[in-house]
């Protein structure tokens, strides 16, 4: 064969193609590529070396057109994608076989409801974005707020979802594996977010509780780490329980508890406040409590003269560990002595 006039690109390409067909017998290979040099030279002469393309693809096409089986081991990324596409197709076919023709036609019903799914997934997508962007955290409303853009964004989302569902915009009929996988993942994500979103939406049954919570949190009252404080049990420095302690905060305001806040178990403890010259005070502790539910109505009228009057509750502990502070020493009760007097006056100025 006269090889002088064959260009190096052609020779390289032909060699690569031969390499791809190395699993064939030499006879078969020769049949396929015998005239390859000449034909490729014509191709290059007519359309330039750029027309040569990928030798792997060329060999695959050549092999397929010649009716020979494809190469055994998949080597490059392309066979993986093809395998993936085949997997998707087979899974899809198997699903179709199992769900079509069931009595009652549940799958056909679902298919006819497909537009509902398009709207629902757009709604879920908008609500998910709302959660992520954190307008109201997990407290969501029926229409996503999205900083005021809720309604227009929702409309656009429904439109996009519908067009995708109809295959008009993307991915279209000639769908590649990557796009199909992406669509599948997005759909699964939307399905997964449906229960999450529906759990976060306000439920009609709990509407009252929601409102009440708002109402309660507007009222004043001591809270400890978020839970309501309904009674306080003071102890002195030695750890002995005290009765009749009146508390004020840094601004001189009485440290009052809200009598109507339920505790952790949701029960309202009926407490009976102390009184001073001005009326009832809610900052003097501990407050007597109703002994039990019995006699409730009687106590409503006049608690102290009823048959089951309120009683001082037992403190949580008979005694607590003694506490100390360098600002105070053991003889603090004695304020008349000189040192104490100086400390006292210093304390006064600080106060």
């Amino acid at each position, binding site marked *: 064969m006269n090889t002088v006039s064959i260009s190096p690109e052609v020779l390289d390409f032909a060699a690569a193609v031969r390499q791809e067909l190395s699993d064939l017998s030499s006879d078969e290979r020769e049949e396929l590529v015998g*005239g390859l040099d*000449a034909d490729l030279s014509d191709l290059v002469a007519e359309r330039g070396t750029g027309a040569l393309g990928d030798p792997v693809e060329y060999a695959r096409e050549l092999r397929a057109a010649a009716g020979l089986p494809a190469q055994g081991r998949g080597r490059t990324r392309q066979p993986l994608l093809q395998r993936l596409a085949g997997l998707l197709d087979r899974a899809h076919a198997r699903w179709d076989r199992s769900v079509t023709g069931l009595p009652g036609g549940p799958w056909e019903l679902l298919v006819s409801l497909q537009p509902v799914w398009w709207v629902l997934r757009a709604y879920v997508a908008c609500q998910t974005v709302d959660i992520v962007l954190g307008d109201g955290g997990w407290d969501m409303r029926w229409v996503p707020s999205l900083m005021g853009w809720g309604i227009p964004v929702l409309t656009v989302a429904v439109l996009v979802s519908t067009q995708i569902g109809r295959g008009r915009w993307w991915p279209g009929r000639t769908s590649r594996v990557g796009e199909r996988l992406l669509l599948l993942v997005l759909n699964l994500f939307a399905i997964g977010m449906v229960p999450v979103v529906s759990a976060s939406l306000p439920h009609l049954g709990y509407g009252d509780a929601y409102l009440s919570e708002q109402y309660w949190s507007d009222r004043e009252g001591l809270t400890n780490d978020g839970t309501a404080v309904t009674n306080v049990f003071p102890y002195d420095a030695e750890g002995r329980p005290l009765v009749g302690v009146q508390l004020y905060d840094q601004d001189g305001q009485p440290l009052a508890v809200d009598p109507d806040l339920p505790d952790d178990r949701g029960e309202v403890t009926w407490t009976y406040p102390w009184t001073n010259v001005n009326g009832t005070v809610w900052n003097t502790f501990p407050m007597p409590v109703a002994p039990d539910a019995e006699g409730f109505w009687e106590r409503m009228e006049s608690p102290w003269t009823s048959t089951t009057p309120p009683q001082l509750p037992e403190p949580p502990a008979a005694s607590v560990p003694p506490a100390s502070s360098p600002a105070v020493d053991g003889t603090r009760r004695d304020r008349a002595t000189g040192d104490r007097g100086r400390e006292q006056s210093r304390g006064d100025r600080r106060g």
Partner: protein
Amino acid sequence: MDTTQLLKGVLDLAVLAVVDAEDGYGYDVVRRLRAGGLDDVGDASVYGTLRRLYAAGALTSYVVPSDEGPHRKYYGITPVGRSQLKRQRDDWHTFSSTVSRILQGTPEGATA
């Protein structure tokens, strides 16, 4: 459906027809198919088809030596090839008119 799918079905027929008109070597057949309007046809597909038809006995081949360039492998049609061509040509006419009729019967835009 893009033309790749359609082409696969009729490439045998097209190649046979081209070679029947006049013997040709690989790229010559490609060129003639493209000139006939089949722009999408791939070189490798044509070569592979030629080889397959040759293996099936529908084509014969011979090498023509050349002074300027590489030797060329020419393909010619055999009697077996001719009868296959006739059969496939008739099949094609029947098939394409059937499909045309169906397409005219359905309203525009409806998917099959």
